[in-house]
């Protein structure tokens, strides 16, 4: 008996830092932010219960809907775009090229560096009026403009930035491609299957679990993008709200206007949307993800 108690104490000693962090910095704050989302709170005075007012205000706020539109546009084009390039290049690199390590590095580097302020600043420059994008367009005889400061184009520069960082997904696809047993291809070749039908009936089905994984991870990441939008728009989400990402609006509400109840409400809506989307993807995966041991 005493022996068991001693073991329990030892185990909890190992777990202690995590327990403090979990209750003090994760679970406690989660409950607290749920409460705050029903209050008006500015950090300095005590929160004041206002019921659903933050949510009502939010759903009537054109900025809120603008941020939803911007973020969804970014996610709906950026994530599939990124996965497309990741898969496409992974398939090419998987054709037994010599020096694959080097190419993999080259394609991975944008993804390694892309989240930094440095690259966001670079993007602001290269899609600016004097930027290299316009230099290339000039060669083609197209007159450029400042893409980052035009409301119709600013979001696309950020989508390009996201797609440019397809390297990490590509590395995961490459690992997935290596897992596909070569016998499958040999057997289907004996049956007279051509390259394209092999791709359709072996490569893609065998890769669906990896596609699912990448899709979920990239979706979660894309919904929370902040740095490039903040840098390119200098914190405003402009021009004309065209880069007002959800997290940028949340930051402005919480930490520029100190409407922290409103910011908490926004955070909970984000969690609900994220959980719903993830659940939908996992639910749909029954119909399109192929597992080798026949489901489960």
């Amino acid at each position, binding site marked *: 008996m005493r022996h068991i108690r001693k*073991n329990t104490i*030892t185990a909890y000693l190992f777990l202690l830092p995590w327990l403090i962090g979990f209750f003090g910095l*994760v679970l406690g704050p989660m409950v607290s932010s749920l409460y705050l989302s029903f209050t008006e709170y500015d950090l300095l005075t005590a929160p004041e219960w206002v019921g659903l007012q933050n949510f009502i205000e939010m759903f009537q706020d054109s900025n809120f809907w603008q941020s939803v539109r911007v973020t969804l546009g970014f996610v709906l084009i950026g994530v599939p775009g990124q996965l497309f390039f990741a898969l496409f290049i992974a398939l090419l690199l998987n054709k037994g090229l010599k020096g694959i390590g080097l190419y993999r590095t080259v394609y991975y580097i944008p993804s390694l560096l892309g989240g930094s302020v440095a690259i966001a*600043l670079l993007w602001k420059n290269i899609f600016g009026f004097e930027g290299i994008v316009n230099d290339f367009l000039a060669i083609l005889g197209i007159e450029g403009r400042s893409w980052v400061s035009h409301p119709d184009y600013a979001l696309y520069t950020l989508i390009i930035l996201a797609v440019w960082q397809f390297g990490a997904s590509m590395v995961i696809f490459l690992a997935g491609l290596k897992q596909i047993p070569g016998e499958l291809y040999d057997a289907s070749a004996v049956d007279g299957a051509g390259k394209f039908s092999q791709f359709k009936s072996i490569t893609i089905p065998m890769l669906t679990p990896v596609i699912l994984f990448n899709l979920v991870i990239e979706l979660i990441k894309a919904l929370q993008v902040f740095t490039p939008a903040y840098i390119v728009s200098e914190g405003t989400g402009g021009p004309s709200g065209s880069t007002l990402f959800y997290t940028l609006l949340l930051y402005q509400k919480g930490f520029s206007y100190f409407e922290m109840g409103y910011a908490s409400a926004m955070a909970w809506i984000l969690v609900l949307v994220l959980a719903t989307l993830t659940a939908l993807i996992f639910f749909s995966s029954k119909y399109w993800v192929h597992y080798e041991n026949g489901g489960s």
Partner: protein
Amino acid sequence: MTWSLPLRKFLLYAFIIIFGFVMLYPIIWLLASSLKPESLIFSEPGLWPSEFTLENYVKGWNAVGDVTFGLFFKNSFVISIIAVLGNLLTCSMAAFAFSRLDFPLKKVFFSCMLLTIMLPTHVTLVPQYAIFHNLGWINTILPLTVPKLLATDAFFIFLMVQFFRGIPKELDESAIIDGCGPFQIYSRIILPLAEPALLTTAIFTFIWTWDDFFSQLLYLNTVENFTVPLGLRLFLDSQGESLWGAVFAMSVLSLLPIMILFFLFQRQIVEGIATTGVKG
């Protein structure tokens, strides 16, 4: 139309190389421009500088009034290194408890830990800020480092649990026969054998902390506490005078630690991504 095999191979290599060059072009251009005199950056086409200069680096290093970028680098390094050490110690402790020890509520806590991996940080943001505000920690490195000493990066706990489970239990058992307790098993058997998982944790913690703009923007508000990302952001405020040369030079320097880390541990980083899905 079918193309002969050598031609197809050639086209494949050509495409991979040209597209790869296009992918890296912005970064190469950044490096080249940082070495050109300010006046040539936007007027001279092509990459190779006709005239090399380090003036952008000197100008950028000293661009911010009273302090230099050296201070920002020091602040970034201090925060990143504490974060690395904190994650290594506390995540491995939690992972050891979850993978090797038995205790009441283990399953419940393990599920809780897994759930927090997916949780967007925004949902804890305001109350965390309030806590740190009440503790008087705003504008110190504590809000950026103390959470790492409390194993809040659950992803790494999960990574280590997976790895620890692969270490044979027989090793623990023979150590127990030799008179080792849980602390010795943790420090003499598990940790040394878990080097790959610890290395992955260290590398990604460093990269993520080094690049973490959002928390640093939130918690650090005077120039002497600024980190490299915040130092770079200052360039946005300097209206009028063109400082792009200096911006590019400091940008290159800010990416340097990550590039060095990448080339030192390329294999581990690529394997880490491939086997666990950590993102760079």
